[in-house]
């Protein structure tokens, strides 16, 4: 599904922080991880990852580290402590919102 860009920016922030909370990754790895984690339900232009990653880094939620692997320069991103705190906060918000939407969808009156 191609979601609207405003919705996607919030979702992509949540997904990026969630995936990076498990291990550090570089952009291409992250794009693959998003597709795998969402069972290909969410498809975003992979180029959009970089503005999001740099924005998260600038806000102090991610830190970047440059590495050379097999002659290629990779920029690995990892979650900071502030990023972990922010992830917990937005995860709770997401659960509350999605729970509300689920409740509305399951309500027989609106079916």
């Amino acid at each position, binding site marked *: 599904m191609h979601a609207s860009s405003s919705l996607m920016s919030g979702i992509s922030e949540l997904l990026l922080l969630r995936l990076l909370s498990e291990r550090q990754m*570089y*952009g*291409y790895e992250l*794009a693959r991880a998003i597709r795998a984690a969402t069972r290909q339900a969410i498809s975003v*232009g*992979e*180029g*959009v*990852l*970089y*503005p999001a990653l*740099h*924005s998260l880094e*600038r*806000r102090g939620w991610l830190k970047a580290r440059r590495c050379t692997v097999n002659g*290629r*320069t*990779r*920029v690995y991103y990892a979650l900071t402590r502030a990023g972990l705190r922010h992830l917990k906060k937005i995860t709770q918000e997401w659960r509350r919102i999605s729970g509300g939407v689920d409740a509305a969808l399951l309500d027989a009156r609106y079916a």
Partner: protein
Amino acid sequence: MLAMHNRPPRSLDRLIQAGIAPRRARRILQEFAEHHADVVAERQALGDSDHDATVAAGARLGTERQLVATLLGRPELRSWTHRRPSIAFALAPVLSFALAFVASLLALIALVEWRKAHGDALGAASPVIHWIGTYAGPYLLWALPCAVAALFALAAARRRESSIWPCVGIVAVCCVGALTNFSVSMSPDAPSMGAGVGIGTDHLGATLLRAGSATALVLLPFLRARWLQRHDLAALS
């Protein structure tokens, strides 16, 4: 792969002009190019031809133009120097010069004390005092203000910032630099150093001449460099 030399140079310039720090702008474009190369390799490994792999990579990543447009829509990526150019390029140079001046004086005092502690008599004939008398004055009164003003002007030029605040910064640093003084008294018994900042009516002409010549020394090359930069950008667009 979107090799660096194939990339439209305008992308980098547009990002820097929009206030994204040069290092970050280069890094984003580099990461994008590396990602493109990874997707092409992935598609080729699945049996796509070079052309098909490149098309598929373009479809997955989007174009560099789209990337630039997305980046320009994110104000949080703009550096603080772009958001506060008056502080970064006018106030900060003056404060930096003041700090550097004081730090240099402290370093000179430390040098003298260190030599004293090692038993040097430090009379007028002492090589240390001679060295300070010869080089410290030109360094503190000329080289330091010009270097500080030039460094900030260079940073502004790298970031393609408007020339107004860097020009204010150059004039301010050179004027403050012209108000400083430094002297070494070579009396045979007890040589001494003196430094300060202030303006006196008896040396007003010399102070203005110092301020004017230091300003010209930094400002003219800066304006010339900015003119060439604008010329190059106009040729690219």
